[in-house]
């Protein structure tokens, strides 16, 4: 390699950079006029925080998943290879946690979607008075502390003196034990989740509905479509993308359910592990059973499950997008 060539190689990118910078400054104004190095500086706070609080813990978690780990005692930090994962695969408690997580997810997400779309269509009605007040009220459950929600609902669902069982008793049915029985317990937790999130999701659906062009409704009414038919053939198809968004966010939220089952069932998630969700199982293994490496392995398993679901979501979204075209 000649000196000349070297010179050229080292210079060429700089030249390119300069020329691109020139063209930017000459044609664009405002925030776009900032050159490359400034942009890096301005976006750096996010990346620095992400490195410290996001990436570093993830790497640490992957590292200790291959160890029998005690954070306070270096003599108890032993490399065990993939033993934690092998054990996890064979651990029936892990599969119970997977079952619980998806059961609670189904009980909370599907009814919530219908409820949220229903509330959004009511709020969309132009005849409704004080629309802003209603929209604001919907958000209040969302800003309530999840712990407070769990405590209050825990009382409502009480077996002996809970108000819900009082009404069940009045209507002549046997009292339901929302803590010791699996399916009623999952429903109780799903109710807490729905109560917290249905308002928020209604607003999302409302925003999507308001974005639907009015012409579509006008032509529908000219064609003599009934209200129900308008909803079914005009509104719903336009909400497809929003529904996908809702399902993705709902799935991520569903995999993180933690405080509600902890309050109702304790760290083990009840005697039959009926409340043991994936995150609660992780917490129990790491903090109660002092088995940190195993806890980290569960964390990675959760990540893996999220990846699978995201992939499925991705393909569904792509199909929806292509069918639109």
């Amino acid at each position, binding site marked *: 390699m000649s000196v000349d060539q070297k010179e050229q190689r080292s210079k060429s990118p700089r030249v390119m950079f300069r020329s691109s910078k020139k063209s930017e400054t000459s044609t664009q104004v405002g925030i776009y006029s900032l050159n490359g190095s400034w942009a890096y500086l301005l976006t750096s706070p996010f990346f620095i925080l992400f490195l410290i609080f996001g990436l570093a813990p993830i790497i640490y978690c992957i590292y200790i998943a291959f160890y029998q780990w005690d954070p306070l005692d270096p003599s108890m930090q032993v490399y065990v290879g993939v033993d934690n994962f092998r054990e996890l695969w064979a651990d029936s408690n892990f599969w119970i946690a997977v079952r619980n997580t998806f059961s609670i997810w189904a009980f909370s997400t599907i009814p919530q979607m219908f409820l949220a779309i229903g509330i959004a269509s009511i709020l969309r009605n132009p005849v409704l008075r004080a629309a802003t007040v209603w929209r604001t009220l919907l958000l209040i459950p969302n800003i309530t502390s999840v712990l407070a929600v769990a405590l209050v609902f825990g009382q409502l669902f009480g*077996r002996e003196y*809970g108000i819900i069982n009082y009404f069940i008793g009045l209507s002549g049915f046997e009292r339901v034990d929302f803590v010791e029985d699996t399916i009623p317990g999952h429903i109780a937790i799903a109710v807490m989740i729905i109560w917290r999130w249905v308002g928020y999701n209604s607003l999302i659906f409302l925003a999507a509905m308001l974005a639907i062009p009015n012409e579509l409704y006008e032509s529908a009414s000219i064609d003599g479509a009934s209200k129900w038919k308008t909803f079914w053939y005009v509104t719903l198809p336009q909400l497809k993308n929003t529904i996908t968004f809702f399902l993705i966010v709902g799935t991520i939220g569903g995999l993180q359910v933690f405080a509600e089952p902890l309050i109702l069932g*304790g*760290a083990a998630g009840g*005697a039959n592990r009926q409340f043991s969700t994936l995150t609660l199982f992780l917490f129990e293994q790491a*903090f109660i059973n002092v*088995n940190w490496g195993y806890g980290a392995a569960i964390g990675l398993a959760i990540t893996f499950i999220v990846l699978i679901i995201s992939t499925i979501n991705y393909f569904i979204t792509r199909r929806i997008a292509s069918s639109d075209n």
Partner: protein
Amino acid sequence: MITTKIRAFLLALALSLSALIAVGAPASVQAEECTKTLKIWSFGDVFLPRLILQYKQQNPGICFDIKKSDLDPLNGTQMITACAAANSHTGPDIAAVEIQYSGYWRAYPQCFVDLRTLKRTSDGKSAKELKSLYLPWRFDNGVAYNGNVIGLPTDVGGLEVAYRWDLLKAKGLPYKRAAVSKAISTWPKFIDFGKQYMAKLTKSEKALKMGFLDNAGAIYTAMINQGTKKYYENNGTAAGKLIYSTNPTIKKAYNTTVTALKAGIGTRVAQFSSDWSVGMQKGKFAMMLAPAWMMDYIKQQASATKGKWDIANIPGGGGNQGGTQLTIPTAGNPLNRQAAWDFLSWYVAPEQQKFAFLTYGMFPTTVSLYKDPEVTGFNDPFFNNAPVGKIYSEGVQKLKPIFAGKYDRAIDKEIGAALTRIDVLISKKKAFNALNEWKTAMTNIAKIAK
């Protein structure tokens, strides 16, 4: 009309402003001069405001920054994180450790300052000299495996039996203190007594699911603490030897609890649930196993039942549930250690523990108070003037030290779950196999405690 509206608005504004000023004013006046601020991590009512105030008055310049969490996050997660980052010295100067966690924290002496190394400013005393003040087995809860003293005890959760004498009397059963204590002197007799009570419940009372004991599962915990060994045996090593599967005390406690569950003497409400508090008010159960600190809880939850309660001796003699040690974590500011020790050793001294007992029912760990006439002569009108001081001090002195280990809580959790599973099966009138549930618990524990 517009002017009236504006006037109304201005008036409202003025009112709210004055309200703001009124709220803000005292805070600005009260600004204190702090030469030293002790950072404390606590839970529940470990630190009583009146005692803190007293210390501040005696030691001007010392301020407290008390952060209260729930017990499990505090002892289970926050303190672990603090210790792992101990070198940053941003952790608490004093932390409260509950007795359930003493087995865990005794495994990590490096997380705490050895209290034998600190000398009190007033008289130069360290934990070594103060040891004789405390109930020996309770002091041991704060001694690490390597002999370091990592905590001093604030209170002991002496366990006795609180019962509704009016309910027992209505059923024609013995209801006077001495007679009840005699009728339930052993656990089998206790279960028999419960059966007699259940047999006398009327149909409507049965329909209301009234029962003898609040939760029969509590018998297990009470019984395992009455022995000399629990899940571990002291074999000279730091970790101890796991004996949970072979220790006859554990198996006996398990079987007795199963018998009690089968006899149906419990109401099956979970302790500290809302059902439990309401049940206490309504006399749903006639008896509960009550640690000393629970007396205050009963008074708060069921104030209308004043005078209808009484206290009897627990079957088997003596018991413990709860109690706290105060520690000085190494994660705290090293410059505050002296001040922290001065305060800590003052707070757990006999005079302060006496105050905590007489006002809040938190039972003292200092042995001199067990002979103090003010304590032994203390009768509680809420509990039908029972001599609670005398009953509890006799009870806590009957207990022996128990070697606590790192996995105590995990083992408790698994055996407790087995008992609850049996309880649920019984309540649904389904068949159960106590031995199989025991084996399931043993398998689960073997996975955890290695």
